[in-house]
């Protein structure tokens, strides 16, 4: 590896496992990250995403498996490179700013081990502060800053490192909503501008979809799906992935017949046994009991007419700026949430509910993981 080569590096994880005492935190995880890719690891707390990130950083050592960064083995077998020799940067969930150093000194920290001249360092530092928009805070100390400002310092520090890989450990989780949105955009643009490979962990699916080139969904230490955001959303491989990436509702249904490849007819448990089309990645025989997952994009509302279809009653409605999110009761004990419509349907009103087959999936509820 030389300084003149393109900055972004590839990361390869293979067969990673990590055991804490009795608990299996990571279970045979393998991921290839191409140079320049923005990978988001998505999962609930305890899914192993933090452990995985810390293994890449070198803060944890995996129990099994190997990791290479930029083609160089950093951990595996007897090899273990400490974090400071992995040439990466990281933004921490709690920011991890050093309270005894000013903003400028925090940002300059990674530069102090580099080969830059002092004047160059100071110039780069100013430039970074400028880029994240906190030049005016350079001489302040971390505890004099707001949460958002602190996270900007942490971002500037990570970018200052001039390395090919940047790790984000839920960097937005401690911020309020509007700042989160704003900073998310900056993270996306600044990281891509810097031409770095990024691994970003979060439990927030909207954050994941907004940022990622690739999303890896983790559950109980295992990688359950690794794909583009679009594919994750459109073709979830398991009930878990479907649920975790957001559904408007899920119901037990029975398969009534096939409709070509990857498409089946299912009978709904409400609406007098009304059948709809739904996508599937498995083959189900007629009569099979399966689970239907409906994305919010897969439901639309209309004014009831005479033709057949599912009817529902509006239970709640909320204005979201562009239109309205509705909660609809489609049968005794069955509701759909976050059903969008550009116009408002009042509470208590009867509506027609239409399903889009491409955003309705059936899966075997007994199988958590399907490959």
């Amino acid at each position, binding site marked *: 590896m030389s*300084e003149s080569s393109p900055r972004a590096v590839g990361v390869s994880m293979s067969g990673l496992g990590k055991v804490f005492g009795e608990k299996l935190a990571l279970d045979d995880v393998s991921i290839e990250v191409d140079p320049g890719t923005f990978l988001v690891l998505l999962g609930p707390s305890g899914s192993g995403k933090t452990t995985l990130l810390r293994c890449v950083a070198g803060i944890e050592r995996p129990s099994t498996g190997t990791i290479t960064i930029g083609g160089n083995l950093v951990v595996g077998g007897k090899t273990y490179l400490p974090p*400071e020799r992995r040439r990466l940067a*990281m933004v921490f969930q709690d*920011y991890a*700013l*050093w309270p*005894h150093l*000013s903003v400028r000194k925090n940002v300059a920290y990674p530069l102090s081990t580099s080969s830059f001249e002092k004047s160059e360092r100071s110039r780069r530092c100013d430039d970074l502060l400028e880029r994240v928009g906190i030049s005016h805070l350079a001489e302040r100390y*971390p*505890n004099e800053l707001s949460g958002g400002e602190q996270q900007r310092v942490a971002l500037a520090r990570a970018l200052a490192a001039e390395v090919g890989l940047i790790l984000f450990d839920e960097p937005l989780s401690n911020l309020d909503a509007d700042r989160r949105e704003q900073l998310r955009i900056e993270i996306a643009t600044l990281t891509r501008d810097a031409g770095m490979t990024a691994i970003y962990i979060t439990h927030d699916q909207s954050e994941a979809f907004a940022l990622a080139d690739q999303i890896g969904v983790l559950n109980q230490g295992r990688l359950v799906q690794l794909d583009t955001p679009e594919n994750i959303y459109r073709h979830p491989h398991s009930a878990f992935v479907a649920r975790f990436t957001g559904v408007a509702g899920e119901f037990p249904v029975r398969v009534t017949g096939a409709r070509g490849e990857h498409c089946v007819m299912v009978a709904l448990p409400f609406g007098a046994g009304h059948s709809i089309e739904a996508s599937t990645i498995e083959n189900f025989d007629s009569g099979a009991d399966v689970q239907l997952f409906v994305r919010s994009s897969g439901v639309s509302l209309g004014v009831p007419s005479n033709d057949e279809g599912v009817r529902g009653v509006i239970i709640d409605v909320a204005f979201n700026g562009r239109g309205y999110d509705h909660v609809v009761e489609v049968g005794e004990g069955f509701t759909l949430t976050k059903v969008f419509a550009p116009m408002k349907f009042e509470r208590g009103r009867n509506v027609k509910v239409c399903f889009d087959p491409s955003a309705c999936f059936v899966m075997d509820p007994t199988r958590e993981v399907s490959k």
Partner: protein
Amino acid sequence: MAIAALDTAAPVTPSPMTTSKKRGSLGGVVLWIVLTLLILAPVGSFLILGVSPRVFQQGSQWFTLSYVRQAFSSYFGRGIFNSLWVSTSVAILSVCVATALAWLIHRTNVGGRKFWAVMMWLLLMMPTWMMTLGWGDLLQPFGAAQALGINTHWIYGEFFGPLGIVVVLTSAALPFAYFIISAGLQGLGPEFEDAARIHGAGPIRSLQTVLPIIAPALLSALAICFAETMSDFGVAFTLGYHSNFPMATYVLFNAISNFPANFSVAAVIAAVLIISTIPPIVLQSHVMRKRSYAVLSGRTRAPRRRQLARGPRALATAAVAGVFFIALGVPILGAVIGSLVKNLGIDSPNGVHFTLTYYAQIFKPSIQGNSLGAPLLLSNQLGLVVATGTGVLAVILARRLIANPGSWSQRITDVFLLGSVAVPGVVLGVGYIFFYNLSFISNNVVSIYKTLPLLMLALVANAVPGQTRFMAGPVSQIQPSLGEAARVHGAGRMRAWRTTNLPLMSRVLLWGWLLTFTKTIAELAISQILYPPSQEPASVSIQSYLANFAPNTGTAMTVVTLMEMLAVIGIALTVYRLVTPAGWRRVGFSGVQS
């Protein structure tokens, strides 16, 4: 070369940041070997005599319970009983006072906050025998107060009794409680208080709501105050003895001051002292389970201060001043004025005269060869080595103590350290003779009996438990991510520690060092029994003047020693201020930030 740096074919030693099992256990083994040599083996050697006096040729029985019975019989039993109730009262009292002080100093605009914080440190460093000396000099007939025309007859009798004992011991325990509770308060954001008040609670009720949140700190403070008070010898030997109020450490001392000494009864009493610290710590760990104290990070915001109105502020300031006057002012004034009164405590027909004679006598070499000069120099050297050694060991232990909260190793270390706090110095001293004078040890391991290093080791052993528990709070407040961030951004282990953890700990390290330094200079029980031939430390010299030849000169020596300690503290703080970057002094430790 960059490739070379990343070459992974070389069989590098695994050195992950987190505790890899191999390294963790190896470090643990080394640490326990050190602790064994330092504390466990010597104290164990002493304690075993309680049931098996024959082990060190102190009796004919291999196993007997007769000394256990003896220890609970009238005289010894009375001492144990007295110590238990005094320590309980002192612990409760000092935690109450300390909570009030901590809240006023950290959470309100009470006057002189920085000053009080520094005073608290001085109080922490003040040995109890100096306190009782000052009180005694002040209140005794023809004492310092009387010399100033103040009648103290009415309180003299009262003070030499449980009242005075509780006052002095509470003064001594106060700083321990204060620092622990202050740390607890730091983690308590004002939002808790605000939330309680918004939901309709008055100030009192909001305090009630908030207190349980800092309950772990309160219990920790209770435990340490109890253990410190149980093991105190300075008050038991002076006030307790003179007021016919035997306490456990005194009856222990008494058991071994006859010839032949009854080490076995002393061992049982020592065991009682140690065991008595277990209930508080069990209670504490029960409450603290799975709670973390890690609150100090870049994100921590300074808590808001309640702005008291002028009247309440003046009142609060006066109350804080009153506490410090009683705890620190009175004893120091008593000793200083007492050292200036000619023939203190003696009904002189010529009236009261003030004199500097006793100060003139201090550095004159006497017949006994024990003027203050050489002993004080030696004590300073001892203090230097002991404080440094203790500091290093305490940091390592403190990190271990907080590394795996709730784990067995952490609990054992915790119980061990608190139990060790309760070991009286005299037990450690005699235990050191037993253990380090064993032929096996002196022939095969190390032969240091009757040398300064042995005294130093014993003093380190004496200081380490308290120091570790003292440091555990501030050390645990440092978020691990601060060090990890440094590692990730290119700093090696040493550099990461030096540039991130050290600055945050620098202040507590400095104060901890000063604490051990001053405690070492004033230490008496261990020094008395272990000082090597012709190398008498200052505390021993002073004590022999006080007890035997010239109490007035002894008092003057005490004052000079105290001044010298203050000078060292002043110099150390000044140097720290000059040498360290500004950022270091912004953070790290609630102790002196107000």
